[in-house]
């Protein structure tokens, strides 16, 4: 047995690390759901600094949005798998881990932001 370990220690260590990695990954992302999720939320370009998305170069029908970032486990508990049918997902009231991110030309780039207010 000891001889087998000595002979195959390289493969055994790789297998052990791979097994630990698989278990840890499944535990974190599937069981704990310990990660952030980001999704788009409505944004009013008149009052807020919104991200802007254009369908074409003319940008005659722009779509304005902000990005909500929050913990996946909490969100899943509130809304299930689909955030689009869950109003609570878009409200960060009383949730310190939830962020509603608006466009900042200095970090996101000028072209990414709605320039109506800028």
């Amino acid at each position: 047995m000891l001889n087998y370990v000595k002979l195959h220690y390289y493969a055994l260590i790789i297998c052990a690390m791979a097994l630990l990695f698989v278990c840890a990954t499944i535990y974190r992302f599937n069981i704990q759901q310990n990660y952030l999720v980001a999704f788009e939320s409505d944004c009013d370009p008149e009052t807020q600094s919104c991200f802007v998305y254009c369908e074409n170069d003319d940008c005659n029908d722009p779509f304005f949005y902000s990005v909500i970032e929050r913990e996946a486990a909490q969100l899943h508990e509130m809304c299930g798998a689909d955030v689009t049918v869950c109003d609570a997902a878009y409200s960060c009231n009383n949730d310190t881990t939830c962020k509603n991110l608006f466009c900042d030309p200095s970090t996101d780039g000028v072209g990414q932001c709605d320039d109506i207010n800028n």
Partner: protein
Amino acid sequence: MNCYLYDPPQYLFFASDLPELLYYSHIPALVLALFVGTFVFLNNPKSLQNRLLLLICFSFAIWVFGSLFAWTNTNSSLLLTIWPVFAVSAALISISSIYFIYVYLNQKNIPHWMKVIFLLLLTPVFIFAHTNLNVSGFDLTLCDAFAYEGLWYKVYYTSLSYVAILWISVLLLNRWRTADASYKKQIIFMGTGIQLFLFSFISTTSIVAYLNTIGLLQDSRAELFSLFSMTIFMVLIGILIVRFKAFNVGAHAADALMVALLILVASQYTYANSTSTTLILTTVTLALTAIAGALLIRSVRREIKQKEEIEQLAKKLAGANKRLRELDKMKSEFVSIASHQLRSPLTSIRGYASMLLDGSFGKLPAKAQGAVERIADSSSTMASSVEDYLNVSRIEAGNMKYELSDFNLKTEASRVADDKRQEAMKHGLLLTFKSKLEGHGIVNADLGKTRQILHNLVNNSIKYTQKGSIKIFVHDDLKGKQIHVDIIDTGIGMEADELESVFEKFQRAKNANTVNVTGTGLGLFVAQKMATEMGGSIHVTSAGPGEGSTFTLSLPLQM
């Protein structure tokens, strides 16, 4: 959480709104890698290089499977479970590639210190794969995690690939220096395959991913092209298998490669538009490939079968050759023993015949005189033959002993001329001696053997010269540090194509039967072997049949 802009896939992988190239780049590469890797592994599971190739192919297949899953699925938890697999499988591919190339080139396992380095390099990738250093979140809008990837973790596992490319280059160059022409070709195929694969696979993926991360590229489709490099690598592995019998894969390699080719063509069904024209064209291509493949398989199989038959015959021939050598040795031993047994009674016969002729037992009657002379002549000839057989036995057994000493070759050649002059005169021939030396004429050789060589050459000339003369001419070449003894006769001569063969055992000139000579046909063979062993040589020239011959003994001068 599900991505809300994309439809979930049908049957795990099939989604309608994905680029057509996706399936064509993923499925054939995945199937081909698994197929070749498994095929090579099953052929010889105990071979380390076969196991390592399987590990590379398997790691690549996991990466491709993960990529296909990530492209088509919409559940964030599942996708994030798959996401760390990209880093781990890429790192495993890089390190295993170095390991594989080392074993392939050196046909031995890597040293202990190298294993420790590999493990140290891989450990951070495994340990931090599930942490925020690798990935911390998921974008439900874009349905990917590029924006949440950790930069330093990505830089680390990507740089492992560049380390692998450099390391492999060094290994290939080192082996190239000592490789023969055939192995150099293998190094080219293997080196090109693995370096192209690593560079294309890692660079394309990492560059596209980085451009995605910093927002310069919104479309990830460019990374799909990187997967074709695996197909090229597997094709080159296939060439190595078929042409160079690499990985000890036998005659079924051609079948396997053909199946792989058919898979590639058939995979067009997975991405081609379902118009009738495209389907017909794909079917025709598949059919033509199958026919061409069948012909190719038959041809390659025939070639491999012939090659194997030739190899078997060569083995048998080698066995037969060994047996023949044993028999030849036994024959030489037999001849040696028999000759030794013959020599003693012959000596008695010769001695008593000589004594009878000398009158030691009184005057012989006139009638008996002729008979005893015949007995003396025949026993001399027989003793000479026995001596030739014994010499051949000693030469072939490697038992001929040479006692080297310095002596004057001109003096010895002159003595031989004096010894043989009487015999030549008996045959009506004039034997003359002449020399033209610039140096002292001293050689370092076996005196007895040198005299024997000269006797053999002069005897030979006397036998094959019916009229005219025999001239012994000694001359030297101080520049070439050689001394030559020419024995020039006016005998039967020989054709140009016989000049070399006269030194073979039992060989005579074609026109030898024009003169009535006896002998074993071993004299020249023995003489040349002796001369060669003493650092000299014997050459013969002749202007043609009836034009006489010149035999030249050359020995190195003692300077």
